[in-house]
């Protein structure tokens, strides 16, 4: 079977993941954590079927034989992004964060900076926001359950309008606001939608990029189901912004450019403005109608708001608690 546009990206992802894993193991003195993760991954690794899952002896040996990552590592990566989404929508819709019992786990638990309730004067928008908030909370519970004892704690999150936080950094990078302005995603319905836009699309692209590397079909299927849900959410956000008219559409184009400035030279991000006034661009796709994907490293470039290989920043001041904790250096 031939393919035209995706293998390069997938292969690149594999290369970067190997690098990231190696760095992590070296930096974290990984033995303990590696064993802990491997123990959880054992449900598939000790399967009688010859599934190519890493075994409990996953060592930081940078050889080709270590290229198959533990599925639980990807689930924990997804869990880290999930804390960000769940907290943003929880704060915006209720004025309070996620219950403390859903934030514990391995690694150094962090706190949330920022977060505020949005005043929804448009009834429909409030209904959509509450639906998304419930969906994100459900995903958080699901991922914590799926990772079990290996679930990583919530990392430090910055969902405020601070100059170093993700919202302001992306808004500045895209020229939506001035270089010394700040962006408050809770100040208005439009700002809330733009804040959601900044996060949601990135998570969709990260899922699309990461799922093919998962080996256990149960996890593949569950992650595909979550990808679908997150795509619905993203389209709800994007179509609301499109319907608001030219100013909101232009704002998304600017934020898209901001994201693109972090994740590499290739334009894999799109705002909602169409090619002309007769067509929308709610779905960010290539010419084949296929939604774009990002490697874990590229997703972190955007979320850390840094085009270089770093281990924190933006929405995650101290980085995420994950094997795949570093952004890509390929940009």
């Amino acid at each position, binding site marked *: *079977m*031939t393919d035209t546009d995706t293998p390069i*990206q997938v292969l690149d992802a594999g290369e970067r993941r190997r690098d990231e894993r190696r760095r992590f193991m070296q930096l974290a003195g990984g033995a303990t954590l590696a064993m802990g993760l491997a123990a959880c991954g054992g449900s598939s690794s000790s399967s009688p079927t010859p599934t190519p899952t890493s075994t409990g002896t996953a060592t930081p040996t940078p050889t080709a034989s270590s290229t198959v990552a533990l599925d639980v590592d990807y689930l924990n990566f997804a869990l880290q992004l999930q804390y960000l989404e769940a907290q943003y929508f929880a704060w915006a819709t209720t004025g309070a964060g996620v219950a403390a019992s859903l934030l514990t786990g391995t690694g150094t638990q962090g706190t949330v900076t920022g977060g505020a309730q949005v005043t929804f004067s448009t009834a429909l928008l409030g209904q959509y926001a509450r639906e998304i908030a419930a969906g994100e909370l459900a995903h958080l519970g699901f991922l914590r359950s799926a990772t079990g004892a290996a679930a990583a704690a919530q990392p430090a999150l910055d969902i405020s309008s601070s100059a170093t936080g993700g919202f302001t950094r992306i808004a500045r990078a895209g020229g939506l606001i001035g270089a010394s302005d700040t962006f408050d995603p809770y100040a208005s319905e439009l700002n809330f939608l733009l804040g959601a836009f900044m996060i949601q699309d990135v998570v969709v692209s990260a899922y699309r990029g990461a799922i093919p590397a998962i080996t256990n079909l149960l996890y593949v299927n569950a992650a*595909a189901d979550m990808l679908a849900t997150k795509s619905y959410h993203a389209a709800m956000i994007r179509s609301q912004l499109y319907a608001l008219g030219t100013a909101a559409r232009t704002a998304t184009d600017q934020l898209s450019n901001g994201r693109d400035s972090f994740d590499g030279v290739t334009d894999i991000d799109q705002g909602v403005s169409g090619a002309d006034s007769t067509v929308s661009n709610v779905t960010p796709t290539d010419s084949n109608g296929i939604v774009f*994907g990002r490697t874990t490293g590229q997703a972190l470039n955007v979320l850390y708001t840094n085009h270089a290989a770093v281990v924190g920043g933006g929405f995650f001041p101290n980085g995420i608690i994950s094997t795949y904790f570093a952004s890509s250096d390929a940009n």
Partner: protein
Amino acid sequence: MSTDDQQLIEGTASRPEADSTLRSERREFFRAAFGAVAVTAAGAGALAIATSASAATIADNDMGNFLLQLEYLGAQYYSYAVTGAGLPAAQLTGVGTAGAATGARQVTFTDPLVAQYAKEIAQDLAGHVAYLRTTLGTDGATAQPAIDLGVTATGAFSKLAAGATIVATGGTFDVYASDENFLLGAFMIEDVLVTAYNGASTTITDKTLLSALLGILSSHAHHAAVIRSLLYAKGVATPALRTNADKISDVRDVLDGTGTDVDQGISPTTVSGNLVSNIVPAGADGLAYGRSSGQVLNVLYLNSAAVSAGGFFTAGLNGAVKTSTAN
């Protein structure tokens, strides 16, 4: 929905044994199994599940062609509705018995936003057809089958609408007559495409193909959200749009098996005194639903039994995957 209601759509005279191949890809099994994995971690139960889950029972090329057949349906619906013409003839050739897409026509959109969304979706689906045809290759891609997009009383749209009691039994439902009807027609198709790709994620073994199909899955989910949120929003002024979508969902659930609720309408629920929309058809775990290929065909053939043609595909599908599940 009663048993009688499904008879309205299509008789269920023949009910051969459910094919074990199709049954093994039932995705609700995976949903249930996944919970077991999480709870037991490395328990024996999880091992057995992993074994079953690893058993891909449909070849990648066959699944790819199954999805291509579905894309012909979606792409032609949007193409005709937006432009009044179908896909280029060069995009319809291939293995199997070539058929025509009949009965569709251009919609005169009144809401410019609906027109702009429809045009975007039409472009994306034409892209999906082109991608899958290229990927499957000139010797492997299947031809467009006969597709019924008409609005007569015996057409698939009308029969589905009648089954949902949106129109009377034997009545007609013209999906090209208005923005609202077009959206309901899109609702009938688009959600099913999302579930088909979710289901396919359990069988595809080629990682490159899987990556692309995930991108198409995401695309369809974006589209479905646009359609569902438009119906939801227009349902403020026209409540029947929400209830009609709910009824269509109910019919799909009857067609694809009574054991599990894998389909949802859009009407809101009230949580802590606040209305909450239901744009995303997901379970309590936030996971969007999927269908096996057989369940997908139950819906599109408008038949809860194991058959090889009907509904939108009057002559069945081209390719190896063409039989609905016996429910």
